[in-house]
């Protein structure tokens, strides 16, 4: 399969992501410049980490208007794989392709550490090859990773199993003391209703080789490979029916 990694001015995890696709998976991978207008036949598109447009205005607010984003949006709406990592997650939220928004960490400190996340659902393109409840060890490095949403949105994504990862301890226990940024319900990653768009703050692309400590992140990229190889889509969720009075 073919991966595309979008390079915005200020992206800095694009090379690591390309390396995972090419050397970790043995796939074809191309860098997509933010001014490009088509995805050059990519099956999966990754919006990488970094500080697109210097994080001006709000993280991800300006990147979402880059020319490439029209094609990314169309790909997402057609059921194609779109992954957002860290700044990429912020961009997808700003673009309205994922629910919620990312605020400054509750501590107001930049956090840089290895955390554990629990896989909450395997019914997404990025966790298809994981086990439900599996705990993955992955690094975080962000100043604005506190995921929030209004109560209705939060209830809706919880009810529809759209929380993909939660911060947990090594045994998989979710608790406030292992929440590094104050995100609601310890949420580290979410997906859209179609389950083909996934965003997360932790960096699986930095945890994809045992040589540098851990390769838990590789499972997520392999999930996409398996899902695309399967040639069918994860079933879309039925629209919510709100009961009448």
């Amino acid at each position: 399969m073919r991966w595309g990694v979008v390079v915005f001015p200020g992206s800095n995890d694009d090379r690591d992501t390309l390396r995972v696709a090419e050397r970790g998976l043995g796939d074809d991978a191309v860098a997509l410049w933010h001014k490009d207008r088509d995805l050059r036949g990519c099956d999966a598109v990754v919006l990488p980490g970094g500080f697109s447009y210097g994080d001006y205005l709000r993280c991800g607010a300006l990147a979402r208007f880059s020319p490439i984003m029209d094609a990314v949006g169309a790909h997402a709406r057609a059921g194609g794989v779109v992954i957002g990592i860290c700044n990429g997650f912020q961009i997808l939220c700003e673009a309205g392709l994922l629910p919620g928004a990312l605020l400054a960490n509750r501590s107001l400190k930049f956090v840089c550490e290895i955390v554990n996340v629990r896989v909450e659902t395997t019914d997404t393109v990025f966790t298809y090859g994981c086990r439900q409840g599996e705990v993955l060890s992955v690094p975080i490095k962000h100043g604005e990773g506190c995921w929030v949403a209004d109560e209705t949105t939060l209830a809706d994504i919880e009810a529809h199993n759209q929380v993909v990862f939660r911060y947990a301890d090594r045994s998989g226990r979710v608790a406030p003391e292992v929440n590094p940024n104050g995100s609601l319900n310890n949420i580290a990653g979410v997906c859209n209703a179609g389950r083909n768009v996934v965003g997360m703050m932790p960096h699986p692309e930095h945890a994809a080789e045992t040589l540098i400590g851990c390769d838990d992140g590789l499972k997520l990229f392999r999930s996409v490979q398996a899902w695309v190889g399967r040639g069918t889509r994860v079933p879309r969720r039925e629209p919510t029916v709100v009961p009448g009075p």
Partner: protein
Amino acid sequence: MTVAIRARVFVTPKRGILDPQGKAVQQGLHALGFAEVGDVRVGRYVEMRLRDVTRDAATERVRAMCDRLLANKVIEDYRVEVDEEAR
């Protein structure tokens, strides 16, 4: 003399949304002895000048700018003030 429009946009964290910056500023002010300080919210201020547009149209345009870019309605509220300035 032409008349230009000056627009001022105040973007603030939504009520009920966590504002750690506001909290830190509040604590700082308390530490400096400003004990009377209650709730503090830290937002963003955007000022711009518009040309070839009436005051009413300017208000509408700036609100559209807020909806599309200047504010994120998931987490922020905004207020727009528009006035004419002679130059």
